[in-house]
């Protein structure tokens, strides 16, 4: 089995506080891997290090065997590592068409193109159309993002990440805050992600985790508590102890 994403002895401190402790994580190619943990376990800090927003104090990050620890955010994206954000991080003034158009242009290397107008490249247009259709955004393509309903914004959030054609996708609580009526769309989209995309899911919602993941890592206080297939993790008394009072773990 090849390893898509790997961390080696990752360590991050804020002041004297160790928020990531000696974390070694392996995500296999094509896996549906979930990273769970109680509030304040440092999940978001891990994501931020993986994507390059934060720099670890020590340790390495490997993407498909290559060291990416020192690459800036956008370079990692071009290498095939993308993420979605827990709280919507979109462009309020831009439309879905423009948002996705940007991501596609950037990936195809036309992002720095300052002379050719948007919308005049057929390869870009085709891909935008395909993504807008797949994510049910075709009708809303000219609306300002800030005016879209929350569920649509979540879809756009995922669509943008997909537009970068990631080989490894980090999903940070994709269904957080989405009303029940719109959840189905999100779950369907997440479930329909192609198998060649490796997914690392960071999630609170245990239903989603256990219906989706084939492997689970549990993070507590910045360190790896346990790791294994869902059934094993669900039975683990340590995990139960951690989640006691937070959320019941049942399959």
């Amino acid at each position, binding site marked *: 089995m090849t390893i898509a994403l790997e961390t080696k002895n990752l360590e991050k401190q804020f002041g004297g506080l160790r928020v990531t402790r000696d974390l070694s994580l392996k995500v296999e190619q094509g896996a549906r891997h979930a990273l769970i943990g109680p509030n304040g376990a440092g999940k978001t800090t891990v994501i931020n290090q993986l994507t390059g*927003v*934060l*720099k670890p104090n020590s340790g390495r990050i490997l993407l498909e065997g290559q060291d990416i620890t020192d690459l800036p955010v956008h370079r990692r994206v071009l290498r095939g590592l993308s993420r979605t954000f827990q709280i919507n991080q979109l462009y309020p003034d831009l439309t879905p068409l423009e948002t996705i158009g940007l991501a596609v242009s950037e990936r195809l290397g036309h992002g720095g193109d300052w002379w050719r107008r948007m919308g005049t490249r057929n390869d870009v247009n085709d891909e935008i159309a395909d993504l807008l259709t797949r994510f049910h955004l075709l009708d809303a393509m000219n609306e300002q993002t800030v005016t879209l309903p929350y569920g649509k914004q979540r879809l756009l959030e995922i669509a943008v990440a997909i537009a970068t054609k990631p080989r490894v996708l980090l999903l940070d609580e994709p269904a957080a805050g989405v009303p029940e009526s719109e959840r189905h769309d999100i779950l369907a989209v997440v479930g329909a992600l192609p198998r060649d995309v490796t997914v690392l899911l960071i999630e609170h919602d245990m239903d989603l985790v256990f219906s989706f993941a084939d492997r689970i890592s549990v993070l507590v206080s910045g360190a790896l508590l346990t790791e294994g297939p869902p059934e094993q993790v669900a039975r683990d008394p340590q995990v139960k102890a951690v989640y006691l009072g937070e959320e019941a773990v049942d399959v």
Partner: protein
Amino acid sequence: MTAILTNLFDGVAYGMLLFVLACGLAVTLGLMNFVNLAHGAFAMAGGYVCMVLVNRMGWPFFAALPLAFVSSAAIGIALERTLYHHLYARSHLDQVLFTIGLTFMSVAAVDYIQGSSRVFINLPAALQGQFDLFGVGIGRYRLMIIVICGLLTIALQLVLAKTRFGSRLRAAVDDPRAASGLGINVPQVFALTFAFGCGLAGLGGALSAEILGLDPYFPLKFMIYFLIVVTVGGSSSITGPFLASLLLGIGDVAGKYYVPKMGPFVIYTIMIVILIWRPNGLFGRTAAR
């Protein structure tokens, strides 16, 4: 050698003055993340109040100084309550535009009322001239500035570190939402702090008439100096701005003395180099990355 010491002395006096002038801005920025480019206008107001009291109404200089503080603080709190507090949540661009507007208005208004030429405050004889200390020329007025500003700095530190208001202020800086959860009236703390910062600026303005020169263009001329103090010093404590002020004061005096032809060039260059090296200021919090 004595020339160096005299320059150092003058530089320290200048730096301390700058600190009193600018520390209010450091607090506004650090506390409320509010870019107040009109800070110099409050200093100017204090300076002019002092001038009118001393020169026109015959008040003693030392009696006029507290009034310079009080009047600037009063203007500060009036503006904070009526205008400024609407803008805390706005973008930096709006804050910049608004405070530039206020600065322009203050410049033109003072020009209209008092004329455009530089004004001097009549000083008591005891503060004029200088005396020799082991061959080092010590200006009386500058010595007084060092004493007053030094005492103020110590008092500020104590207020921040020891008093109830200080701990409330620090709580409000660290996390306004948590602070208001603890029953701290954050807007009130903000308003008082803002007014206090303006008052200090007013006092600084009154003291600086002799050294920096006081005219209607004061807020524009010294805007860059206040900004340097805050950006170089960082706004997370008052120690940073204090050290930055001293550095700026000594550097400026030395630059004007040793390389007079380069004018303010020295200061700007140092500032830019420092900001390349440490974008968050010499003594600022290091950023997360």
